[in-house]
C-alpha cells in the first residue's frame, strides 16, 4: 500500500524582478514586475509503506519544496498529494501527528535549554501519554546514546550531539513516515553511521517509511533501495539504487595484482588508471566491451589477486545530475 502519492504535483513561485539602477528601483515601486519560477513540475510517483526512498537532486532542483508540500507546509500550485491517505494541506494538523521531519540545517530544539526540556514540550505538543513518553525517550536515548548530554543546554552540544537530539525530537511521537532533509549534513563518519543505523532499525522494527533527501551518496547507498533523481523540478530518474549503479555508468573498476611482472594489453573500452610492474588498476566501459571479455584476456596463472569495484555512488549521482534529462 502506498504511504505517499504524488499526482502531477506542481509548485510555481512568484518572484519579484528588479532591474539595476535607481530608475528601475523607482519603476518597481510604481509597477512591480514578477516572474514565475516553476520549482516542481508535474511530479508523480508513489512511495510504499515501509519503503526507504532517496529523493536526490542538485541544489535548487525542487527537493525541499516537494518535502514541504508533502508535510503540508507549502500549498501546491496544482496537482494532488496524499500522505497516509490524508491531504497534507487540508489535513496538516492530523497529518503532523503521524509524520516526523528532520531538517539538517534547521534546529527544532530550544537553543538555551537542555534537549530534555524540548522533548517534554514535544510530548505535550504531540499529546503523548506520560508512560509512553518515558518508554519512548528511554529507547531513543539508548539507540542514539543521548544519556551523557540530555541535561546540557543545546548551545553547548556538538553538531553530532545536536543532530542526534533532533532525531530523537522527531521520533518521540513514533511517526509512520520520517521526512529527512539532508539529515547528515556536516556530520563526521561515526555519527553518520549511528544515524544510518538508527534509520535502518526504525524501518525494520517499526516499519517507518523514510523519505530522504541528501547530498551524501553514502546515505543513499546505505539506506535506500530506490532513488528518485529530481532535476529542474522534474523526475529525471526513478529506479532501484542497484539498477542505477549497474545501468547508469556502465563502468567497473578492476584492480589486478600479478605474481610476476606483467602489463595489460591495450583494449577498446579499457582505461588504465594506475600501473606498476606488479599491479594495474583500470576502468572498463561495459557498453564498449563486456567485463567477461576483458577478464578472459588475462593470464590467469600470473594473477595474484583481483578486485572488481562498482564506481562510487557519488560519481553516479554526479553523472546523473550532469546528464539527468537525457536519462529516463
Amino acid at each position, binding site marked *: 500500500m502506498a504511504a505517499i502519492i504524488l499526482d502531477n504535483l506542481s*509548485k510555481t*513561485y*512568484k*518572484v*519579484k524582478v528588479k532591474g539595476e539602477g535607481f530608475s528601475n528601483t523607482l519603476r518597481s515601486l510604481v509597477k512591480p514586475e514578477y516572474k514565475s519560477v516553476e*520549482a516542481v513540475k508535474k511530479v508523480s510517483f508513489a512511495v510504499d509503506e515501509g519503503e526507504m526512498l532517496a529523493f536526490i537532486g542538485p541544489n535548487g532542483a525542487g527537493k*525541499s*519544496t516537494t518535502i*514541504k508540500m508533502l*508535510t*503540508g*507546509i*507549502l*500549498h501546491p500550485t496544482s496537482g494532488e498529494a496524499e500522505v497516509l491517505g490524508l491531504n497534507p494541506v487540508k489535513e*496538516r*494538523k*492530523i497529518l*503532523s*501527528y503521524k*509524520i516526523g*521531519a528532520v*531538517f539538517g540545517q*534547521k534546529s*527544532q530544539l*530550544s537553543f*538555551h*535549554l537542555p534537549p530534555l*526540556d*524540548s522533548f*517534554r*514540550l514535544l510530548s*505535550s*505538543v*504531540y*499529546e503523548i501519554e506520560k508512560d509512553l513518553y518515558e518508554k519512548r525517550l528511554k529507547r531513543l536515548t539508548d539507540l542514539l546514546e543521548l544519556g551523557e548530554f540530555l541535561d546540557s543546554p543545546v548551545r553547548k552540544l556538538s553538531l553530532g550531539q545536536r543532530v542526534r537530539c533532533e532525531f530523537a525530537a522527531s521520533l518521540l511521537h513514533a511517526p509512520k513516515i520520517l521526512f529527512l532533509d539532508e539529515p547528515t549534513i556536516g556530520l563526521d563518519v561515526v555519527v553518520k553511521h549511528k544515524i544510518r543505523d538508527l534509520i535502518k532499525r526504525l524501518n525494520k522494527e517499526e516499519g517507518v517509511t523514510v523519505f530522504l533527501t541528501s547530498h551524501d551518496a553514502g546515505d543513499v547507498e546505505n539506506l535506500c533501495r530506490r532513488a528518485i533523481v529530481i532535476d529542474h523540478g522534474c523526475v529525471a530518474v526513478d529506479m532501484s539504487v542497484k539498477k542505477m549503479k549497474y545501468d547508469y555508468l556502465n563502468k567497473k573498476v578492476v584492480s589486478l595484482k600479478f605474481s610476476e611482472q606483467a602489463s595489460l594489453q591495450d583494449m577498446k573500452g579499457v582505461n588504465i588508471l594506475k600501473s606498476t610492474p606488479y599491479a594495474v588498476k583500470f576502468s572498463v566501459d561495459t557498453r564498449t566491451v563486456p567485463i567477461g571479455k576483458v577478464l578472459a584476456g588475462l593470464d590467469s596463472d600470473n594473477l595474484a589477486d583481483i578486485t572488481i569495484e562498482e564506481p562510487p555512488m557519488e560519481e553516479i549521482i554526479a553523472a546523473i545530475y550532469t546528464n539527468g534529462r537525457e536519462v529516463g
Partner: protein
Amino acid sequence: MSKYLAMAGISIKNSLVYRANVTGRIIFYFVFIFVFFSLWSMVYSGNEIAGYSLRQMIWYVCMTELVVFCSGSGIFGIMNHEVKSGEIAYQLVRPWNYVYKQFASMLGNITFSALVFTLMAIILGMVFAGPLKGFNAAAIPFIVVSFLLSIAMNFFFLMSLGLLAFYFEENGPFYFIYQKLLFVFGMLLPIEFLPLWAHGILRYLPFSLITWGPAKMVVDFSYGYAMEIIPLQIIKCIGAIALAQFVFSRGVRKVNVHGG
C-alpha cells in the same frame, strides 16, 4: 490546551536565560518614567488638567509604560523575521495552532519581566508621585484583567502587523504608524486631554483601550468604568485574535515566496 501551557512553561525557562535583557529594559523604563515625571512636573502649574492631578498623571504614565514594556515582546520582529526567512515553515510541521503557540510563548516570555516591571512601576510611582489617593484594593482584580486584555490585544495586533510580511516586502511602516498611534492616543496623553469629539471616538478604538483603558482604571477606578472598558477590551481582543488568525491563514498560502 496542555500543549500551549507547556509552550508557555518552556518560554518562562528560556526568558530566565535573558536576564541581562530584562535589566537593560528596566533601566530604560526608569529613564522613560523620569523624563515623563520631569515633563509633567513642568506642565502642571495648577491642580488638575482634564481631571488628572499631577500624582495621577505620573501613575498614569507608569501604568501605560508598564503595558507597553510587558507586551513589547518583540513579536513584530519575530513574525517579520520568521516570514521573510521562511522559518515559519518549520513551525508548521507541528500539531499546534501557530497563532496560539506564539501567544503562549509570549505569555511565558513576559511572566518574569512582567512581575519585575510591575514591581518597578509601583516603586517608581511611589517615589515620583506618592500613594494614590482613594485607591481601593477591590479594584485590583479588575485592573489585572484589564492589563492582561491590553497585553493580549497589543500582542495580536502586533502579530498581525508582523504577518503582513507575507504580503508586503517592507511592512515596517505599519509598525511605525501603530506605535505612534499607541503613543499619542493613550500612552503619552490620557484621551481626556483631547477635544471632546475626539475623546468620544478614541474611547472605542483599540489604541486607547490598550493603554488608556487599564491606566485609567488604576488612577481613577469606578465599577461603572470597569464594566464599560473590560467588555470593550474583550470585544477588541477577540477581534485582534480573529485578525491575526485571518492574516496568518491567508498569508500561510504565500509562505512559498520566502520558504523555498
